[in-house]
């Protein structure tokens, strides 16, 4: 099994028009998705990130990126899969995609291996 980082960018805009009931449903579908991943040994972890932060470049420090701008990463999932194809297939089930968010799947580079 290889490790994959799923970087999540949420569509915060979509939340604005959601009712409490719909938000609860959204959470429930995430929980179900994570539960399924765990059951099949694919889930290793995940965490939300605070909305803002700073970006450093040379001596320049700027605020952001912000998750509201869709450029900022709002959280990550840590998955186990045999290859990138499988990880991508798993990522397709992420409910965030249904409401206009995006998921970036990145394999962790293994030490001491050329693959």
């Amino acid at each position, binding site marked *: 099994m290889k490790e994959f980082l799923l970087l999540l960018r949420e569509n915060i805009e979509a939340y604005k028009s959601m009712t*409490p*009931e719909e*938000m609860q449903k*959204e*959470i429930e579908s995430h929980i179900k998705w*994570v*539960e399924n991943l*765990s059951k099949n040994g694919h*889930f290793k972890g995940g965490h939300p990130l605070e909305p803002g932060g700073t970006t450093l470049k040379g001596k320049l420090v700027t605020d952001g990126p912000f998750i509201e701008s869709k450029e900022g990463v709002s959280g990550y999932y840590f998955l186990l899969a045999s290859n990138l194809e499988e990880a991508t297939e798993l990522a397709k089930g992420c409910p965030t995609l249904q409401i206009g968010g995006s998921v970036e799947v990145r394999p962790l580079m293994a030490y001491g291996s050329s693959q």
Partner: protein
Amino acid sequence: MEAASNTDARVLVEHLFREESGKMLAALSRLFGLGRMDVAEDIVHETFVAALRTWQFGKVPDSPSAWLMQVARNKALNELKRLQHRRKVTDDADPSMLPVTEEEAGRVFLDHEIKDSRLAMLFACCHPEFPIKSQVILTLRAVCGFAPKEIAAGMLMSEDAVAKTLVRVKKEIKERNIPFQAPIVFRSQHRQEAVLTVIYLLFNEGYKSSAANELVRSELSYEAIRLARLLTGYALDTLHETYALLALMYFNFARFRSRTGELGEPLLLKDQDRSLWDHELIAEGYRYLALSRQGEKVTRYHLEAGIAAVHCSAKNFESTDWKAVINYYDLLSERWRSPLYVLNRVIAVGNCWGPEAGLDALQKAGEEEGLGSNHLYHAALGSFCFDMGDYRKAAAHYKKAYALAESSSDRIFLEKRIAECDRDLLTRH
């Protein structure tokens, strides 16, 4: 394995967010004042966004409700500081009071305080000077936590119309500076009765026959029951009246699924499938009916619940105790003039002593009460003629009723009756 700790994802209680939304709105409105309900609504929404952003990674807190209230509380305290600061800087002449200390502010988020706030919110929403429909809509929004979209579906209105009503009524609250907490209001029997009226209307909105949005409509009716139960937690003057209303609502709610046909048209009691009745709910009805009879007064709700109990206790339509039903309607029409009571009484007469007796009583009542423009009156005439075998006359009455009927489900019902008359006319010739 690390993953194991992530598998204990809890399932959330059904409608948790909606319910918490009502609780948070009550607490927050008490803090910021009823005129700032928009501020409260924003905080509630932000709280849910925070939950969505955090919980989607598989970990739901042990007590989701406590988590939500805590987040709302922190957001509220920040907002409070901001408002207080602005008032100091700009000398904003906002008339509504804001609490001074953080401790004072934090108190409104204690469990029992939230419960009281919900009651206060209910009384504020059922303000007799608002149009009654606005009262129902505002109650659904502010006390029950329904979103405008859900209110629209439940009350068979457009979302736009609901939104406009809410804007209008909130503006009025602000202009009149309606206070949030006024215990004297709870003690006023007049206001308590106004609240019961809104609750009953809310129940009936959900109970109205229609094929559209059955699910959310049953939730509307159930909310009414929950609000009445909230009221019984306080020793109000109208406690026994509230018990009676609860009994009535439970008896009717037990028959929710059998009340309409496939097209959402109302079904006659004799055509309802009694195996669909929920006996646990009927038992609740009896429990509340017994409690309601411990009071001294006999109210409208007592009598209506009595009638509902007669129907719920009958094994089938034929064995219904019609004399008891007639007796209840007599008592009702003595004290409250309503064409509905008159009509229902006459229908009971017909079921008890035959269609001829019913028709006779109905025609008399029609003249006395001036029921000529009531479609239910003509439908009842049609029904008696049909039972007497006069299909031609029955069809004519049903057609008159059809022309007067307003709701599409009533028209579907009448179309079916007219078709029955035509069929029976054909088979006879």
